[in-house]
């Protein structure tokens, strides 16, 4: 129970920090984003007082209200779900843009991360179990792949599998001409077909980290005394590998999820740009290109919330699978 409480307190603190950061950045930066946004909005259509108030609350204004009062207005705006109006997708509100793009990103990154984690852990387990075997020699190769920038790998794959041998489509999330979005088979097929290459990019560039981490932990765990005991008891190698060694070796990989997830999310934002995938990364870039500060702040907030949420889930899971964490706190 205490473990749970500690974790929850930490994530509340992290959430508060993220919200405050989101509040402070536009106010501390040079220039006047509000005027820029409002003038851009005005060129696209009439700006209602509500929109103006929302944008002022999010980005800060020259009004003489104190920073505290602005902070409360900002929090109030967030709670009511009003994140302002987007310029890039005018006249849609920011929350709606995020609502439309988020499922694409969560689907793509979520699936790719799970595949990469599972395959990486299995390969790492095999490599650590048989050190010096061919699979262990794969490690330097995957490390090399890991230091390849996501977007460059994406460019390369796009060039080879999109242009030279047209196996996969060049961009987009589904075929906009022939299928209609919804719960139907052609749409699902189209989504999988379009998502394969971006997902492959993320898997290839992130698998090395999981594999290496798992391999090193397997090696360390193998030299523990309880493994020797298990061997002496005459347990089958298979049982030792999966129940005794791998089970302990996987723990740091799971607790290291936080660091890697941030990395994967960062990489896939840029990957989305290459594939013009209709996800939140593309929305962020479009926002950057159009000085759409409201959308930028909103996207940053959502990405942070998603990463925090995923980490909270992993932490809770960790408490279940590793009883020591509960005992220690």
């Amino acid at each position: 129970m205490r473990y749970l409480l500690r974790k929850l307190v930490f994530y509340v603190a992290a959430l508060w920090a993220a919200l405050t950061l989101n509040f402070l950045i536009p106010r501390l930066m040079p220039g006047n984003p509000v005027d820029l946004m409002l003038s851009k909005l005005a060129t696209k259509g009439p700006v209602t007082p509500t929109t103006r108030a929302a944008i002022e609350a999010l980005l800060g204004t020259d009004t003489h209200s104190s920073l505290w009062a602005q902070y409360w207005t900002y929090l109030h705006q967030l709670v009511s779900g009003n994140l302002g109006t987007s310029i890039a997708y005018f006249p849609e509100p920011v929350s709606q843009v995020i609502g439309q793009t988020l499922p694409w990103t969560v689907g793509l990154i979520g699936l790719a991360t799970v595949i990469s984690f599972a395959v990486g852990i299995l390969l790492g387990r095999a490599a650590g179990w048989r050190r010096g075997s061919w699979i262990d020699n794969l490690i330097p190769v995957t490390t090399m792949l890991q230091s390849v920038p996501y977007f460059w790998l994406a460019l390369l794959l796009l060039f080879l599998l999109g242009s030279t041998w047209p196996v996969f489509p060049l961009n987009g999330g589904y075929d906009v001409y022939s299928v209609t979005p919804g719960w139907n088979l052609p749409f699902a097929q189209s989504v999988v077909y379009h998502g394969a290459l971006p997902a492959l990019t993320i898997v290839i560039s992130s698998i090395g980290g999981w594999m290496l981490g798992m391999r090193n932990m397997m090696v360390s765990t193998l030299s523990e005394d309880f493994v020797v005991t298990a061997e002496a008891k005459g347990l089958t190698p298979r049982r030792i590998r999966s129940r005794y060694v791998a089970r302990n070796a996987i723990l740091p990989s799971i607790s290291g999820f936080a660091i890697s997830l941030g990395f994967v999310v960062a990489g896939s934002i840029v990957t989305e740009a290459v594939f013009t995938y209709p996800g939140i990364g593309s929305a962020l870039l479009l926002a950057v290109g159009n000085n759409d500060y409201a959308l930028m702040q909103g996207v940053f907030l959502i990405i942070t919330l998603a990463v925090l949420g995923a980490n909270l889930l992993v932490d809770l899971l960790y408490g279940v699978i590793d009883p020591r964490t509960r005992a220690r706190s």
Partner: protein
Amino acid sequence: MTLKLAVGLGIAGIIVVFGVVGPLLVGNPSTVRDLGLTGPGNGFLLGTTQTGQDVFAQLAYATRGSLIIGVVVGALTLLLSSFFGIVGAFVGGWADEAFSLFTNIMLVIPGLPLVILISSYVPNKSIWLVAAVLAITSWAGSARVLRGFTLSVRSRDYVLAARISGEKRWRILFVEILPNLIPLLASQVVFAVIFAILGEAGLSFLGLGASGSFTWGTMLFYAQNGLALRLGAWWWFAPPGLAIALFGAALSLINFSIDEIINPKLRSQTRAERNKWSVKS
């Protein structure tokens, strides 16, 4: 000196020398020629861009730019992570709690979106600003690693002995504890350099890098915008990415070797070999 270390140092060395000396030997990378997009050959080692700029010259300057970013961010990250990781763990008490909370919060806030956000507010960025922003968003991981290790060193008997014998606190920190942390610090710096170069490349690729600078990322940005991909101009978009990958791989190899020095268990050795050894002794 293992093979890994030799290969890593070799590749990294070649790239560093290229970045330092290269720009002195090639012409101006921005010179526009009336050539258009030409492949390698005809006096241009790596061909030319759409506007007839020498890709090889650009690569030389870009290498220098990216290395500068890597070194600056590596140094800043070292400072920040040592401060928050080592000092916090050494002082202990509420300072450690506070530092550790701050570190963990910085760790779960995704870095690149934050960097994108900050850099989109500043229209004309210097290379130093980009480096500072990258360092601010990337020190937390190594601070946590350093904290864990410092805690374990701090509670060792010889540190206790030093404390009882009345050594000053700063002396315990710098003379007794810090030398033990050097391999770990080295590997964290190497990691920070890789992270910085990758991060800067991503940022520049999105058009948010330092203005007027030449880095591997800006080269890729111009290649992408010049439709190098559609035109099949591999000599334009392949070299910068390959340079990043090679440099990153070389640094990882160096890091592996450092890891193996710290933790001899990781040294390559099959299970059969180890069992044989333990029976013999």
